[in-house]
């Protein structure tokens, strides 16, 4: 039984990791680097990652750019519209922690205040190679996830 579940899981995870569809969400400068990463040189498409315009069809949200308080509520809405399993990559300093705008009155100091983040990419703006590396790491994590068996509760 275990054997069948493991193979099924391996297959499902392989399928998910090889076709991570990300939400086209570029807010600021990192959005341009996101765009360049989708371009010919560091091609995100070779990971199976294609941009989708709507969160309903996206597995991954790459929050690229500064998030202001005004935008944060919409960000939360977008995150909630994504179907599970869903992942969030916080790309760049502004999404990680507010970045350059620590003293700004209107900037959310870190996207993890409103949505749970799986991966943080430091940089301002991070290089396309860094984003590609993040996708690879996300793929590695996806391959290890267990779907069909419950997580064992901690033994007392």
């Amino acid at each position: 039984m275990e054997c069948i579940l493991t193979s099924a899981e391996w297959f499902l995870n392989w399928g998910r990791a090889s076709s991570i569809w990300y939400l086209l969400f570029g807010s600021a400068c990192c959005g341009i680097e996101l765009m360049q990463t989708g371009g010919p040189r560091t091609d995100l498409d070779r990971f199976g990652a294609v941009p989708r315009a709507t969160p309903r069809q996206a597995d991954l949200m790459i929050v690229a750019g500064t998030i202001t308080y005004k935008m944060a509520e919409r960000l939360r809405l977008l995150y909630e519209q994504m179907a599970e399993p869903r992942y969030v990559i916080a790309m760049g300093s502004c999404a990680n922690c507010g970045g350059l705008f620590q003293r700004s009155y209107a900037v959310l100091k870190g996207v993890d205040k409103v949505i749970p983040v799986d991966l943080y990419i430091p940089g301002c703006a991070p290089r396309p190679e860094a984003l590609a590396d993040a996708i690879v790491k996300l793929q590695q994590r996806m391959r290890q996830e267990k779907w069909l068996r419950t997580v064992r509760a901690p033994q007392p």
Partner: protein
Amino acid sequence: MSGPLADRLRAQFPEAVTGPEQKGVPEAVQVAVGALPEVCRFCRDDSELDLQALSCLSGVDYPDRIELVYHLISYRRKHELVLKVRLDRDRPQAPTVAEVWKAANWHERECFDLLGVTFAGHPDLRRLLLPDDWVGYPLRKDYAPPTEYHGMSHHRADPLRPVAPEVHAGGEVPRAR
């Protein structure tokens, strides 16, 4: 020291227009707030001044006043003029010039949003850049940002203080969300 544009404007509006304002900025004048729309209309329509466009409308918060600064430019004649208007800091109100230059519409909205200057006669004076329920005018010198907005804290934890990492018991990778 003043320039020909400032002189011409002063000649046309001897009471409302005074100056020069700043040394090194010869073409700058002080305009009385009540005469502002008339002066602006003259600046735009007069064939010598021909100040076709409003380049920039800024508001500056000084300790004793709020000053509106209008940078005007003429493309045909390649010259510029600066108009300055002093407003009372406690109740900053000015007439709108949105009918003279439509560019002023959004500039005035921004001034209202960030400095709290109300423009009488403006067709649509609402906040532009900040959320509609924002309290306060950030560009004022005595502005204190809120501690939180809609539940989102303004504060960021100090990155130099270590935080204990979460440990998943049993070494299991958590289930996919």
